[in-house]
Every structure is written in structure tokens, then in C-alpha cells.
């Protein structure tokens, strides 16, 4: 609730912004404006003038446009085309029904791809090959030893 009093300038500004319809005035300013109207004749005059202007504006005539609606409906419309990207996004996240499996699937794809890729390059070496590599390294190191020292 705004208890601040309103002066005539502020009231004029209120009318400029919102017109004479009190229901259009912001609630926090409406009460102060109403209080001012009760005590200030000039404010009442301003409101009356704005109200008169608003009524006159509402009376400004508008012409009829016979057949316009029909012409707009009948006008030739280009065929609607979607880009492949738009179609994919619409399939992925459809507007109508929430089919969650599609975005979930799409978000899992990078993970699956990463696993497959990693498996192919690094983790596909078999244990037998590891063992063979290990023994060939051992034999190589043994071959380098000087066995005469131990004898």
C-alpha cells in the first residue's frame, strides 16, 4: 500500500501514461490518485478532459473492408518447406506429445560412440598378445645379461 500523497504533476503523468480508466492505473498509484481527486478540483477537471478525449478516440470511425477476409484466405500460399535440421529437431523434440525416449537416446549417443571408439583403439588388445609382448621383453632383457659373471 502506498501512502505517499500525489501532486497534480504526478497525476497528469498518470493520465498521460494510462488514460482516464481507473482500472488501468497501477494499484500502488490508484489510491493516491483517488485521494487527490477527492480534494483537488483541478485534478477532477483534468480527469474529465482526459475522459472526454478517450471517449472521442473510441468514437473514431473505422471503415469496413468487405471481402478482405475472404481474399486473404484465398490468396495463394507458398508450399511450406522445412529444412532438414528443422525436421530433425521436430522429430527429436516434438511439440505435440512428449516422447522422452528421443532426446534421451540422442543424449546417450555421444557416450556410446565414445565407448566404441575407445574400445577400438586402446582396449581391444587381447590378453594373449599382452602376455606375448611381456615375455618377448623379458627374453630380450635376459639376452643382454652377461652370464659369465654368475659362474
Amino acid at each position, binding site marked *: 500500500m502506498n501512502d505517499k500523497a500525489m501532486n497534480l504533476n504526478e497525476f497528469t503523468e498518470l493520465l*498521460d501514461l494510462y488514460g482516464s480508466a481507473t482500472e488501468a492505473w497501477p494499484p500502488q498509484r490508484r489510491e493516491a490518485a483517488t485521494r487527490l481527486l477527492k480534494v483537488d478540483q483541478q485534478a477532477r477537471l483534468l480527469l474529465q478532459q482526459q475522459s472526454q478525449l478517450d471517449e472521442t*478516440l473510441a468514437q473514431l*470511425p473505422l471503415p469496413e*473492408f468487405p471481402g478482405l477476409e475472404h481474399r486473404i484466405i484465398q490468396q495463394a*500460399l*507458398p508450399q*511450406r518447406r*522445412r529444412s532438414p535440421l528443422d525436421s530433425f529437431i521436430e522429430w527429436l523434440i516434438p511439440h505435440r506429445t512428449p516422447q522422452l525416449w528421443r532426446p534421451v537416446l540422442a543424449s546417450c549417443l555421444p557416450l556410446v560412440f565414445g565407448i566404441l571408439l575407445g574400445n577400438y583403439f586402446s582396449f581391444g588388445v587381447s590378453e594373449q598378445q599382452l602376455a606375448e609382448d611381456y615375455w618377448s621383453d623379458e627374453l630380450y632383457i635376459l639376452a643382454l645379461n652377461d652370464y659369465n659373471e654368475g659362474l
Partner: protein
Amino acid sequence: MQAVCAGSQGAYAALVTRYSKSISHYAYRMLGSNRDTEDITQETFLRMWTQADRYQPGKAKLSTWLHRIAHNLCVDFLRKHANMETGDQVEVHAEAADSLASLENSEMLDRLNKALMSLPENQRSAITLCHLQNFSNQEAADIMNMSVKALESALSRARRTLRQSQGLRD
């Protein structure tokens, strides 16, 4: 609008029926000419059809979006035809005055109409959207692609000018 995106002409026709009057009234207030109003209104709905996938339901109401298209078309038209006098084409369909009061009223309406058409386009648009088309200040600001503060400034100036045109105290 989803149906329009999918290419449904029936949905398109339904939206034309619902909004064509409002759009044509706005365009008329901006342009003041029957023929130009019809062209702009027709173009608005053509763009609605071709740009339907740009509409985001969560961001704005459909009426706001359509009025924005109409507003942009009107502004482009007015800038293109800036050298032409728009006031001459204004038609006030006043009924024949059968009394002094109605004659005075008719003159008042004519004076106000001319004052409205003489406003700068942003002020005319602001007063038309907020007062005549009953959009909120925020919606009108969205339509005109400006801040609410800028809209309110235009609205204030428009109301002041119109009051002065009626010989009312400012």
C-alpha cells in the same frame, strides 16, 4: 500455429478469421488509407504463413506476434512513402449532421482524426495499440520492439498532443 507449421490451410483460415479485423484496424490507424490497409493486412497473414515456425508460444501471445508483423510492415511502408502526404487519404465516415450537436461532434472527430494521423509513427502506434487495441504497455512495447519506458514516453507525448488538438488544457 502448430497446424499452420504443418501446412494446414484450414488452421490458417481460422486464424485469419480470428485476427484479420484487429490487424486491419491497426493498419488503418497507422496508414489512413483503405487500399494500403488491405495490402498490409494481406501481407501480414502471408508472413504468418511463411514464418510460422518462428513463432514461440511461450514468448508472446499470437495476437502480439501478429501485430508485431503488421507494425513492422506499416513502419516500412510509411518510411518508403515518407514524401507522400498521408493526411489527405484519411477518410472520416461521419454521418450527415442533423443537428448542431452532431455537427460539432463530427468536426471534433475530424479534428481528432487529423491530429492522430499527424502524430509521429511511434506515437500513433503507441496510442493505437494501448488505447484503441487494448494491449498492455508491456505487450505494446514488445510489438514495437522498444522498452516499456520508451513506449510510455511516446504514449505521454501522444496524449498531450491530442489533448492540445482538442483545445483541452495541458
